[in-house]
């Protein structure tokens, strides 16, 4: 399984490329080739790199390494059938790295990105609603138990549709060009990644590719069930393309609206889960 980590990075980067391609086609542009993001990462890794004089030194580099490390960990959690709570923890730790990227550089744009990331902490809460809902329905938080449950009772996508929506929104809020990606809005240059260029940016691309791969795989495993690897990749691709459609058709929300919308979604889900817990 350890050998799968490199293919996962490349597939994740390819997914990013497909994401861009689909958005471009919907908007009537030719778009970049789908391997563009792989080339991008390589390009960034070749580029001349330094550390800004204003940066907080070990942290500036450390946070990139942490970003890769947590998603490597998440990869194993998902594919060894580990605890869903641990995946949630990784997701929260990802939030900390987002803050850290922005705060460590000393650049005002990075700071803006970090502040927006602090504000949009609501995007993490639907995942908690997902976890609570799955725990109520299946009685377990181990991903292996959940896939076993689905072999007996059928996919959760049908059995617990609102929970799937919550998870879908979580993935959506982490996609590039999505309605909730306020931390990388162009009016603040590149948000919290402004100062992380060259090698650091390439490292981040690796981490984010793993992140996309892990989140899509987790979605398929949790709501459709264990599949053979080619069907799994196909299902992930379908989920990704649906996400690209949403990203292409929705404008980026203002920070206030993004937070408000996510909070409303979480509230509705909380009501659903309480009803589920009381009745079911």
């Amino acid at each position, binding site marked *: 399984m350890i050998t799968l980590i490199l293919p996962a990075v490349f597939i994740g980067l390819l997914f990013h490329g497909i994401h861009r391609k689909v958005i471009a086609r919907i908007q009537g542009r030719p778009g970049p080739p789908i391997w563009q993001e792989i080339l991008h990462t390589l390009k960034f890794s070749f580029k001349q790199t330094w550390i*800004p004089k204003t940066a907080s030194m070990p942290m500036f580099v450390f946070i990139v*390494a942490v970003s890769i490390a947590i998603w490597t960990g998440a990869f194993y959690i998902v594919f060894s059938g580990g605890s869903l709570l641990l995946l949630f923890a990784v997701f929260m730790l990802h939030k900390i790295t987002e803050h850290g990227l922005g705060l460590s550089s000393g650049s005002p744009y990075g700071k803006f990105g970090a502040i927006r990331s602090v504000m949009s902490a609501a995007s993490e809460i639907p995942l908690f609603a997902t976890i609570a809902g799955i725990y109520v329905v299946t009685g377990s938080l181990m991903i292996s138990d959940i896939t076993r449950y689905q072999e007996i009772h059928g996919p959760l996508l049908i059995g617990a549709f609102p929970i799937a929506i919550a998870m879908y929104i979580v993935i959506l809020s982490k996609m590039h060009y999505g309605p909730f990606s306020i931390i990388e809005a162009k009016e603040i240059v590149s948000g919290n990644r402004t100062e992380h260029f060259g090698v650091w940016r390439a490292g981040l691309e690796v981490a984010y590719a793993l992140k996309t791969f892990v989140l899509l795989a987790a979605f398929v495993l949790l709501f459709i069930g264990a599949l053979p690897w080619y069907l799994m990749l196909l299902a992930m691709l379908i989920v990704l393309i649906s996400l690209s459609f949403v990203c292409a058709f929705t404008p980026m929300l203002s920070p206030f609206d993004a937070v408000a919308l996510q909070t409303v979604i979480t509230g509705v889900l909380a009501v659903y889960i309480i009803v589920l817990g009381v009745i079911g």
Partner: protein
Amino acid sequence: MNKESYLAITIITAVILALLVYAVSIGTEPGWLAVIGVVLTFPIFTLSLFLWWNASNTDGDIPFTGY
């Protein structure tokens, strides 16, 4: 640090990663120990690999702040 030390770090971490792959294939207990090893070495491997093959290093600069 110069290029040679980045190359050395890359090779060392690559060897560790290969050893961990072997450890998993023969099934060492406990299983999560190898995973922690990968989690700790993979980021170092990636970054040092990139730092080894990238263009020259120069001193830092004041960040980009405006057009």
